[in-house]
């Protein structure tokens, strides 16, 4: 395997709140390889967004605080870079696509001027005409119709799907090698989601960027990701190839998530929810944070006392799980359905 383009190690992020310290991200680590799509999946509060955004310096400090860890991108630790150097990287070799384009686009500037600015900011000396021409090319690439006319429109004149296209155009303007997409389709209707998925694929073909896809949508992960990081209560609890992860998950939480899904393509007699509620991140459960909801633990003491390490499986060692009893799980435990 080629050398990773981004390496995160031992990342811990906390937030100071009135109620106490929120342990949002704890000891997170993964590698991103060139050209791959890495899915980061989890439910609300799992730390999936914070873990990635803190690396980009996009978590507000205070209340946020990066306690430890490193994020190596092109031999530089992003967590130790001065603000201006990080700004050069963001929107340049590392670009972002957010859930709600309306909050990331400036409402009083035209779409075109914002994309042009992204180009000239990272390529000083580009003349205005060249930047505008490139902007129109980019809008065409992401499927904005009548790009030459729409380049001079304002964000409010774009529909949600079109705004998301414009965001993607801006993100790929400087030929990034890493694209971070945080819930890129969540705010959109399903037929528009499908369009944006195609645009993302086209953007990747164009730039060959590696994509970090942060989402709660397991369908989107199954469709787009090469490898997957599953997070729960701020920690990575399973990591592996997308096929291995869906077809033979090795963590009871991943198994539980898949079993709790209603399926579009199969009738299930009954959904199998994960019992209980998500944990508090101020006073997380001892040992494995999932143990109070875990059907595999069966009250075994080690689950309450020891935080399980992320351990490798199989010959390749690519599939890893943070469960003391991961060996007890096998693919038979995922029940897709098709009962009628």
């Amino acid at each position, binding site marked *: 395997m080629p050398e990773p383009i981004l390496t995160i190690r031992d990342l811990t992020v906390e937030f100071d709140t009135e109620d106490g310290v929120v342990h949002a991200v704890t000891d997170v680590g993964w590698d991103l390889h060139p050209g791959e799509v890495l899915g980061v999946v989890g*439910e*609300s509060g799992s730390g999936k967004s914070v873990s990635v955004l803190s690396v980009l310096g996009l978590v507000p400090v205070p209340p946020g605080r990066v306690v430890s860890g490193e994020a190596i991108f092109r031999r530089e630790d992003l967590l130790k870079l001065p603000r201006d150097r990080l700004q050069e990287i963001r929107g340049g070799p590392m670009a972002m696509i957010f859930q709600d384009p309306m909050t990331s686009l400036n409402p009083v500037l035209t779409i075109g001027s914002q994309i042009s600015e992204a180009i000239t900011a990272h390529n000083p000396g580009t003349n205005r005409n060249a930047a505008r021409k490139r902007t129109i090319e980019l809008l065409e690439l992401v*499927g904005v119709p009548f790009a030459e006319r729409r380049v001079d429109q304002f964000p409010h004149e774009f*529909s949600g*799907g*079109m705004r998301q296209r414009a965001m993607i155009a801006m993100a790929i303007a400087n030929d990034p090698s890493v694209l971070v997409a945080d819930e890129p389709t969540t705010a959109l*209707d*399903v*037929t*528009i*989601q*499908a*369009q944006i*998925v*195609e*645009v993302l694929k*086209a953007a990747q073909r164009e730039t060959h960027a590696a994509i970090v896809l942060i989402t*709660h*949508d*397991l*369908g*989107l*992960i*199954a*469709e787009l*990701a090469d490898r997957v990081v599953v997070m729960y209560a701020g920690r990575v609890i399973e990591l592996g190839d*997308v*096929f291995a992860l*869906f*077809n033979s998950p090795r963590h009871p939480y991943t198994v*539980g*998530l*898949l079993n*709790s*899904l*209603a*399926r*579009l*393509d199969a*009738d*299930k007699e*009954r*959904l*199998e*929810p*994960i*019992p209980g*509620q*998500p944990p508090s991140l101020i006073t997380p459960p001892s040992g494995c944070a999932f143990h109070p909801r875990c059907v595999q633990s069966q009250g075994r003491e080690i689950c309450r006392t020891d935080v399980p390490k992320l351990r490798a499986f199989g010959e390749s060692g690519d599939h890893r799980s943070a469960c003391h009893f991961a060996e007890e799980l096998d693919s038979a435990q995922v029940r*897709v359905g098709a009962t009628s």
Partner: protein
Amino acid sequence: MSEAQAAVAATPAMSASDDEILRVEGLVKHFPIKAGVFKHTVGQIRAVDGIDLTVRTGETLGVVGESGCGKTTLGRTIMKLVEPTAGRIIFERRDITTLKRRQMRPVRRDLQIVFQDPYASLNPRMTVREIVAEPLRIHGLYHGGEGRRRVEDLLRTVGLSPEHANRFPHEFSGGQRQRIGVARALALKPKMVVLDEPVSALDVSIQAQVVNLLAQLQKELGLTYLFIAHDLSVVRHVSDRVAVMYLGKVVEVGTRKQIYEAPMHPYTQALLSAVPIESPDHRGKRTRIVLKGDVPSPANPPSGCRFRTRCWKAQEICAHEEPALVPRAGGDHPVACHFAEVMRPLSLAETTPPDSRSANSGNPVSPERA
């Protein structure tokens, strides 16, 4: 039961079949668009624009569609939370269309609603006991110790503990709040509940808990549900029958099997093909229909068939003649399309479709099947 007779229209109010609990006929709800200093009306948002539907006692009718299709307005109009512009609402053989607020009160005992957002729909200053007891009090049914016991029973019914009664909504997670909303809706022992996106604000693992709770309550209490949602997977799981809406109209209605296994309307087919399925094994093996463009404005819907501007099958006739929601050749459930035919977007193709099939620009390819 015959599916054709099932869902649709045209039958006069008196000939209601015995198992019917709710029927809407030609239901219309337009919202005026106001402009200018004097706020005169410059147009109409045609949120619900002529809907005929029947709901049978004890069933779950799912209503799906994308934002702006009118599904939420449909639910609220049925509840008379907004006044219908035209059409009729018949609940338990009684025309409730023109009933005033006060006259609606007894109807509300039998017809309740649960809202989407468990964070916004519960009064933050009321305790859980007050929230659940409120409908009982309004109807003069809350009496001392008996009332308290009823509230505690309701909390147990929805999987909460009676000790929760003295707490406030903010002390609960999203899933628990939705349980409180369900307890309140059940307080008056309704026969039918309109569920407006009841699980879409919840995380997946919690969604399943609430979906199972709703199923269990339906079984135990014999409830009828109108289940409004945009999540096609959840709707498949909960529904006996499903109505698909687009721009204020029902475009297709049928049993769960008919809608998911043999859909006939191009929009239904496109919707089903667009939802990502939680299995990487399906990659590249599904028929993909990527619709071009956005949903047109409900203030100015296209002439004829409203879906025609995004439809790959559209012909002359689609612009001139609005297709009726009737059973069409090749199927036995009502579809509003001149060119309706069965396509199965959820069965895997034997061969990998070429990339061009999912191109994002230009006309989507009409997917043919082996």
